[in-house]
């Protein structure tokens, strides 16, 4: 019977188990064979009925063979299907981890596990083979040079030596084998040896593969600059720093942890030759390169004393900051003015080309046909190593008789000279001293200074205390009376002594009574008027005075009463005063609050 029931239950449960879609964890690699330096993607997928991605997948430690460098996901998707009227929901979560192969060998990725409701889903194991990078045989043209570090920044110059002012094109390349992230590159620091002009830069890394020393490297163009040496001698192109980050393989809450590194190019020294003295034209002002001069328009028809506006353009490979105004001697009867100067920087065939335009105004004062002399510019051509002179065509003018009353319009002053730095050095030492004013360190370390800072705080605290005390005296009558009790009783006792000295025993006893009654009434905040001896003794007992002191008080008050009304024959007033003083001191001590 039991067996039949079991079979029946199994028959009932098995179809139900088949209906349920158990959670399934899979790990897939996009390749199972890589070489060191290459990357591999592992996709971990969890799918099944109602699966939820809570805690992250726990990846095993794959170092030193594989290092985690990136992650995409988690991506989740869910679907609902109705089959034979039955609704089924399934969900899928996947994450793709990117690893970089760092060491040759075979690594077995053990099954991953992930808790799903009351069970644990397990993935399949995967084996990855990592091989060393294959070193190809040295090919033709491979000089055997190999970048000394990965990555490596290299600055290449288009020439080994140059003349002062001659354009040198520096191109910066990046050599690398392993990938990195967040690259940052500083421009060439030209220091005080060059002035520079930007030529171009790469908006993104677009490497080509080259072989160096039997290894395959990626070589990417970064940027190029035109450098113009400003003095003869040995000029230094300082190292260019390239900053980048690489993944450490560790992970934090925010994702893969990266570390920053920097690598610098080698400094380059280049010989800068002075310009030759031989053959230097008298009007040479330092222009180096190759230049053309154009004049537009080169023909004009106007009346005498009218303005003829035209532009003289100098274009060439020199730095435009070095180009001075072209030489031109206007013939007699002509006035020449410079209206303005513009300069442009262009790029042609990988080199910097500049253009400087001088806007000019010529005012002829005599009529006739004129062919003006050309504008000239003497320069040194580093290609030929010779001085040359560029000449513009001569401007032709047809000047007709003008209105004799017409005068040339007022013109702006000629182009001002612009100051520019030609060198840099330290600023000079400070002058001699009559008195040397030295400090010993930070003020805060001085005990006197630190102690002095306590005084303001103490003053504020003291003033707050005094303020509160004053306020209390003003608003708390009992407190104020208690404070003055001793003072008032002492004064009454002094008056008693004075009366005693005058032989007025009755007054002395009256003063002692007043001192005692006043002390008690002030100290215990009782109304002095009509205060009876019984009230005094009760109040004193309540205030904590001893019974003996209370009894003494009562007796002394009685004696005083008798004496001041002249009823106490033979009363010793001095003794009463002495006792009164002693008693007051005792009461002050016993009733102190």
């Amino acid at each position, binding site marked *: 019977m039991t067996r039949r029931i079991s079979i029946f239950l199994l028959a009932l449960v098995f179809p139900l188990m088949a209906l349920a879609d158990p959670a399934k964890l899979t790990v897939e690699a996009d390749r199972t064979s890589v070489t060191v330096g290459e990357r591999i993607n592992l996709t971990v997928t969890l799918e099944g009925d109602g699966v939820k991605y809570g805690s992250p997948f726990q990846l095993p430690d794959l170092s030193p063979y594989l290092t985690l460098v990136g992650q995409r996901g988690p991506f989740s998707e869910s679907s609902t299907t109705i089959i034979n009227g039955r609704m089924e929901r399934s969900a899928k979560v996947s994450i793709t981890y990117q690893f970089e192969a760092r060491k040759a060998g075979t690594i077995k990725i053990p099954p991953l596990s992930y808790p799903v409701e009351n069970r644990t889903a397990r993935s399949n194991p995967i084996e990855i083979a990592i091989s060393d990078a294959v070193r190809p045989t040295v090919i033709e043209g491979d000089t055997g040079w190999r970048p000394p570090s990965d990555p490596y920044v290299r600055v290449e110059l288009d020439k080994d030596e140059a003349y002062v002012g001659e354009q040198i094109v520096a191109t910066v390349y990046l050599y690398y084998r392993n990938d990195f992230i967040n690259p*940052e590159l*500083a421009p060439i*620091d030209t*220091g005080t040896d060059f002035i520079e002009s930007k030529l171009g830069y790469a908006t993104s890394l677009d490497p080509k593969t080259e072989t160096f020393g039997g290894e395959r490297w990626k070589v990417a163009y970064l940027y190029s600059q035109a450098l113009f040496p400003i003095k003869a001698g040995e000029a230094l192109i*300082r*190292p260019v*720093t390239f*900053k980048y980050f690489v993944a450490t393989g560790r992970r934090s809450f925010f994702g893969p942890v990266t*570390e*920053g*590194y*920097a*690598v*610098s190019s080698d*400094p380059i020294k280049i010989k800068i030759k002075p310009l030759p003295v031989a053959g230097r034209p008298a009007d040479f002002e330092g222009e180096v390169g190759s230049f053309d001069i154009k004049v537009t328009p080169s023909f004009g028809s106007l009346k005498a004393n009218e303005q003829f506006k035209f532009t003289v353009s100098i274009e060439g490979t020199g730095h435009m900051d070095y180009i001075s105004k072209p030489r031109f001697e206007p013939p007699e009867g002509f006035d020449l003015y410079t209206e303005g100067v513009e300069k442009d920087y262009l790029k042609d065939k990988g080199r910097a080309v500049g253009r400087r335009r001088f806007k000019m105004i010529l005012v002829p004062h005599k009529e006739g046909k004129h062919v003006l002399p050309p504008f000239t510019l003497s320069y040194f051509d580093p290609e030929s190593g010779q001085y040359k002179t560029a000449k513009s065509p001569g401007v032709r003018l047809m000047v007709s008789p003008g209105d004799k009353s017409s005068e040339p319009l007022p013109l702006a002053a000629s182009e001002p000279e612009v100051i520019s730095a030609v060198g*840099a*050095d*330290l*600023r*000079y*030492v*400070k*002058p*001699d*001293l*009559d*008195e*040397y*004013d*030295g*400090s*010993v*360190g*930070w*003020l*805060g370390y001085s005990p006197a*200074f630190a102690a*002095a*800072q306590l005084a*303001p*705080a103490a*003053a*504020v605290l003291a*003033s*707050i205390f*005094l*303020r509160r005390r004053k306020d209390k005296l003003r608003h708390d009558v009992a407190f104020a009376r208690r404070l003055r009790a001793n003072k008032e009783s002492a004064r009454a006792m002094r008056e008693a002594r004075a009366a005693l000295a005058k032989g007025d025993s009755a007054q002395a006893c009256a003063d002692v009574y007043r001192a005692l009654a006043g002390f008690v009434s002030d100290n215990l905040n009782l109304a002095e008027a009509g205060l009876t001896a019984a009230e005094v003794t009760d109040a004193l007992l309540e205030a904590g005075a001893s019974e003996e002191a209370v009894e003494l008080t009562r007796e002394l008050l009685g004696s005083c009463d008798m004496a001041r009304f002249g009823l106490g024959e033979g009363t010793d007033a001095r003794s009463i005063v002495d006792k009164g003083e002693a008693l007051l001191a005792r009461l002050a001590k016993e009733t102190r609050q």
Partner: protein
Amino acid sequence: MKRTANLILALLAAIIMPLSAGASSAAARYNHGNELYKAGEYAKAAEEYNKAIEEGGANAMAYYNLGNARLKSGDLGRAVMAYLKAKELAPRDPDIEYNLDYARGLVKTQLPPLERGPFSKAFFWVLNLFSANGWTAIAAVIYWAAAAAGVWFAVSRGRGGKEAAKPVLYTLLALSAMALVFTAVRVKLDVLTPRAVILADKVSALSGPGDNNKVLFETSEGVEVVVGQCDQGWCEVSAAGGFRGWVKADSFERL
């Protein structure tokens, strides 16, 4: 009475005389350093400036001239140190700023400059107006004034007096808090931060103490670093741009 007065005078003289003697000696050293500098004897000039500082205490002009002499004699790292000390003492001196920038420009390993936002720039502009002692003195004066206003407020009777004291007190308290912040930052940067300058020509910063660790970045003479923990003759240093690594303790000198 006269005897007591004579005793006090003698004591004062005993205190002041050595100080003034030290100051005049330092001034003489400094001036002699200038003479040597002008004569092109830069190394000897640097020695004189150093002695002036030892005898007379820290002085911005002496440190500035020391930086010049060291730079002229090819000691770039210690020149940067001297300029940094000079800048601590006189942060608004344009000559110190210029020569420090000039010296930094000669450092082979150029680290990326710190990029600051507009608020940060404004904060550091104000911060660099005064030295650590300058800010401390300013904070102390404002604090004393605020305390005086506090006493005024506390002892004032009646609403009128307190109302008059209140804006003064609050303004001074706010100024005191601001001055305290600037003082704290200045002191943290100049006094409490263990700064140093690399003196070796080329130094590799490693991932740990010991030659067998990985090279993280390269530094060179004149690079300014902050020194962290030290272990077995190696110290962890951090440089601008977030670079951190271990270098040998004898490759740098603390300010």
